[in-house]
């Protein structure tokens, strides 16, 4: 029978007949899927407990110099003293790339027609922010800046100039704003905060060390004047060589001390009644209207 005349079934059957049997060796990990760590056995569990055990150990710990228990290699040559010196106090920002942001919008997690802030991003359950671990919000990075398609109104805590330019090129708006710890806890989980019956906190001003960043129009800080930001916006477009689209329909920005859009600070939200209660007491009005700078980790 000629080659063309045979049916597909016969050819498939022939292929199956000639194939080898699947063996257990054929089930293998991908290359690089596993790493070889130190193989600790029961007899090695005693290493490092006593000096004698250290001297006789088959695999002594790293940096061990024979015979000298109190002078390991790491203590003799400690390396750069100031490296990571501030690891206990510095702030941490969760990176949010433009690619990830576009992906979340594509998949429907985020509505690009509404303002995007910490509450919006944390409600998607894709990001975990722990204020107790000095995580202070989001860092908008420029990955995917060449083809960001959405015109968004986003508020982050840190943004690179390229990311800012990419968002503004697409017709959007970027603001960088500081959240203190209490406001951050409220913004991360608003439902939990409202159901606890707590007062919507007043967002504190940034500490001394961050004041320069948020008062700089290049960073689109929320403490700047709008005219300066417009000037920097035009300058950025001129420098990077793109034409600014018409300015977006100016949705109201948050006030400097406001945590949620549309809800004034110093109010109580009742989800069951769908009402917002604002105090009429003069003491509370004065307390919630004064602008206080945060002292933490300044």
């Amino acid at each position: 029978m000629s080659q063309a005349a045979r049916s597909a079934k016969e050819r498939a059957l022939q292929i199956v007949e000639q194939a080898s049997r699947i063996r257990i060796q054929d089930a293998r990990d991908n290359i690089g899927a596993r790493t070889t760590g130190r193989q600790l056995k029961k007899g090695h569990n005693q290493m490092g407990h006593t000096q004698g055990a250290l001297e006789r150990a088959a695999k002594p710990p790293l940096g061990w110099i024979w015979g000298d228990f109190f002078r390991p290699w790491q203590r003799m040559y400690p390396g750069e003293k100031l490296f990571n010196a501030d690891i206990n106090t510095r702030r941490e920002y969760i990176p949010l790339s433009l690619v990830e942001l576009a992906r979340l919008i594509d998949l429907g997690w985020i509505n690009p027609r509404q303002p995007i802030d910490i509450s919006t991003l944390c409600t998607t359950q894709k990001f975990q922010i722990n204020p107790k671990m000095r995580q202070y919000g989001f860092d908008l990075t420029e990955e995917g800046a060449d083809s960001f398609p959405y015109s968004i109104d986003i508020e982050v805590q840190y943004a690179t100039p390229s990311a800012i330019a990419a968002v503004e090129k697409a017709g959007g708006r970027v603001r960088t704003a500081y959240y203190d710890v209490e406001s951050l806890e409220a913004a991360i989980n608003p439902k939990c905060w409202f159901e606890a019956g707590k007062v919507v906190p007043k967002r504190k001003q940034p500490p001394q060390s961050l004041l320069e960043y948020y008062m700089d129009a290049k960073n689109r800080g929320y403490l700047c004047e709008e005219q300066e930001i417009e000037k920097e916006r035009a300058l950025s477009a001129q420098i990077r060589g793109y034409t600014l689209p018409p300015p977006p329909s100016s949705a109201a920005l948050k006030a400097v001390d406001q945590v949620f859009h549309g809800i004034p600070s110093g109010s109580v939200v009742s989800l069951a009644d769908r009402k917002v209660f604002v105090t009429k007491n003069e003491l509370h009005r004065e307390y919630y209207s004064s602008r206080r700078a945060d002292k933490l980790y300044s």
Partner: protein
Amino acid sequence: MLRNWRLLVRSFATNSSEEIAPKVDVSFLRPRHRIIAAGGMPPVQFDSERERASRRERFGKYGLKSGVPVEELFPTAEEIEEEEAIGLFREFNNAKKEYKELQKKKRESELARIAELEKNLKKYPATLAKYEASLVKQEQEKDEKEVALEKRIRDIQEYFGYWMDPKDPRFEVMLQQKEAEEKKAVKMAKRDEIQKKRFAENVQG
């Protein structure tokens, strides 16, 4: 429980005679939890529920229906005074003022530096000419000792065949060697002179 068993027995036994059997709740939920399961608001029963945080939470969950007055949710005057007394936060106007003063001071120092730079730039040609003239003058006024030292250094460098830093240890060794040679030459010259003198005396005698 026994009453429930009777109801169960009755519902099974009299199924054909009675039209409607009464519903039997066998979940054994407490009344509080039955209310919660039905979506209602449980009554205040425990002491922990009468505390302020629990009352706030009750308002948060059930709203105005909970009966908690709204003014209780806001901080009291004592709390506000305590916070201000502790001084956890500082006035933003003060912080902004300090920042602006710092910026102004920095800007002023920068402007002063630039002004001084421009002034020096204007005087630069005259200063340069003056400096070059002083160099020439300095070259002319060099005394013999410096000339000798420079000559010695130049000789040593020529001996090595390439430029060498005067601070090099080999340079130091060669310098001492040169000094020793010069001293020896002086001594030899003196001795030759003496010999010449004696020779002259011998010739006359």
